[in-house]
């Protein structure tokens, strides 16, 4: 059974120039104990999507349509307001982007932990402090450090504190928005290993939002690739990375530096930049940058399900074998190599 399913979610930002269609017709599901990665470039809507699930979107953003089901309760439905509120943080918690800056600099860490545990979780102070020590132990920080202020912590340790807060009320799902982006590789690795450990020991389901394919490859089982507000490809990490079906995923693979590759390998950029979501193009949103676009691409591509493991939104999905061969050549993407 799916723990969380999102069906046809649309989120728009309203500004002076009209609506920015940040998330368009997104559907995905998360099973218990699954680690789902959402990958995409900046501005592709991945953060908006993550924030919509936890209900902490910006005041200018509005969920236009769609449903988010947590254990078959639609938490977007106003009728379920009280139920939905209980879901927040107790069932689904959130680690915001640059969690290191999300700690309040004038309060001790212990007080910030108490805030979560006492106000949201209904613990008394003594119990809250005990739980904080336990959580710190779990994320690998000495519990003496609870008495410190955030500025006394390094970046990686602040990230650990943010994780401790997120798992404080034993949620089922943790949504982590770029949890390792500002961290050095060694610390990054430690945090990713921590996620893995917590997932196993607490039976957590995790949604990991990132722009880094290698982070996905290292940690996740399932991945959704987003482009310009839409999920364009989704499936098992292995099949999406090794046998991508969407030209954008192929292009992203080419553009990604790989430590194991040969020096002679050429990094291939995807020319152009993502479309403005105030007026997104009709049809496929990648068509302007796509070397394989056809007339047909002016119509919105359907979501082709190849198997339970793999789905793609591309009209030329059935030619993916040939396209993949062409996409691996730099001349396909750049004119004057």
């Amino acid at each position, binding site marked *: 059974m799916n723990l969380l399913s999102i069906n046809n979610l649309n989120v728009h930002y309203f500004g002076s120039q009209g609506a920015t269609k940040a998330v368009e017709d997104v559907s995905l599901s998360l099973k218990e104990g699954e680690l789902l990665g959402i990958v995409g470039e900046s501005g592709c809507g991945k953060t908006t999507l993550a924030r919509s699930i936890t209900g902490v979107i910006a005041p200018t953003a509005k969920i236009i349509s769609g449903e988010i089901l947590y254990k078959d309760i639609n938490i977007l439905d106003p009728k379920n307001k009280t139920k939905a509120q209980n879901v927040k943080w107790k069932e689904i918690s959130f680690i915001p982007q640059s969690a290191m800056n999300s700690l309040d600099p004038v309060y001790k860490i212990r007080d910030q932990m108490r805030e979560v545990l006492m106000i949201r979780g209904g613990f008394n102070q003594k119990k809250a402090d005990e739980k904080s020590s336990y959580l710190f132990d779990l994320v690998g920080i000495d519990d003496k450090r609870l008495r410190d202020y955030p500025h006394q912590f390094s970046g990686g340790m602040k990230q650990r504190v943010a994780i401790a807060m997120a798992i404080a009320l034993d949620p089922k799902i943790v949504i982590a928005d770029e949890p390792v982006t500002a961290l050095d590789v060694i610390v990054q690795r430690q945090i990713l290993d921590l996620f893995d450990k917590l997932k196993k020991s607490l039976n957590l389901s995790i949604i990991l939002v990132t722009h880094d394919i290698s982070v996905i490859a290292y940690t996740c089982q399932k991945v959704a690739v987003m482009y310009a507000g839409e999920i364009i490809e989704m499936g098992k990490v292995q099949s999406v990375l090794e046998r991508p079906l969407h030209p954008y995923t192929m292009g992203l693979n080419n553009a*990604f530096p790989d430590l194991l590759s040969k*020096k002679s390998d050429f990094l291939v950029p995807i020319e152009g930049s993502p479309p403005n979501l105030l007026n997104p193009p009709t049809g496929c949103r990648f068509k302007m940058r796509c070397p394989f676009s056809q007339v047909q691409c002016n119509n919105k591509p359907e979501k082709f399900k190849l198997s339970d493991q793999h789905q793609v939104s591309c009209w030329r999905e059935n030619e993916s074998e040939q396209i993949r061969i062409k996409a691996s050549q730099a001349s396909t993407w750049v004119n004057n190599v």
Partner: protein
Amino acid sequence: MSNSKPILELQNVSKFYDISRNIKELFAGIKPLVKAVENVSFKIFSGETVGILGESGCGKTTLGKLILNLLEPSKGNIYFLSKDINNYEGKQIKEFKKNVQLIFQNPYDALNPRFTIKNILLEPLRSLDFPADQHNSLLANVMNLVKLGNVSEYLGKYPHELSGGQLQRVVLARALIINPLFVVADEPVSMLDVSVRAGILNAFNEAKKKINFTAIYISHDLALVKYVCERTIVMYLGSIVEDGPTDEVVKNPLHPYTKALVSAVPVPHVNQSHEPLPIKGNIPDATAEYSGCKFAERCPMSKEICFNTIPLLENKNEKNQKAACHFV
């Protein structure tokens, strides 16, 4: 190569920042020193692209600033074309700036929002007294070099009208317009998206071939350093721990820190090793005094000697790979 004269040479360069952290220390006269760069020596030869790799706080940006003569070293000397850059007089400093340029990390902050792209690009020519009749040809050349596309389309625009990738090309063009001998690139693509990164790096590589400058590429990302640089210097807490050909550093790292760094880099492949890292803990406080190897307390193979004797950066094999470790 080792017989020719280096274009840049650092001799035992150190840079200490003093920070008085609180009023008690201030009155007690305690001046804690952050040793951002300590006892760093290396030579760079013409045509090389050298990556300076390290985690945040390891002193790589300070090192870049020292080389650019934006900071004065606390100890040691830096020679550019055999002249000490801190002893320049009068016009010599302008000559130095005609030869050495910087590519900034964040293109959104590095460009004056009230200047048009044309003015941004002409600024170095004006301030370094290039004759006005050369301006237009240099401008056209550099726009072509960084593949900024249709020249007339961009020149009248302001920075906010361009995308991040285009802005970084402008930053690149501004550094290269005077045809510098030496370029310091400080994390030039870390602010950019993956799909545009590759374009900037390719433009950088091509420009390097065409105008043949020597470069230092400062980065925390080993995969990018590998793509751009043939030689890599690895820094830890202000000191060099390893220096060698990039391919060797990646394939056959010598220093335990480099080994940990290489194994920590995630790769975009599914079946990668999940082995635990061989090191523990965090980077210690940069104000601490060390009588031995700075990495000893985190190192899996440290012995007594590591805590007592500072290891020297020595050649360890025939491939000119140097490491500062007692046990390599």
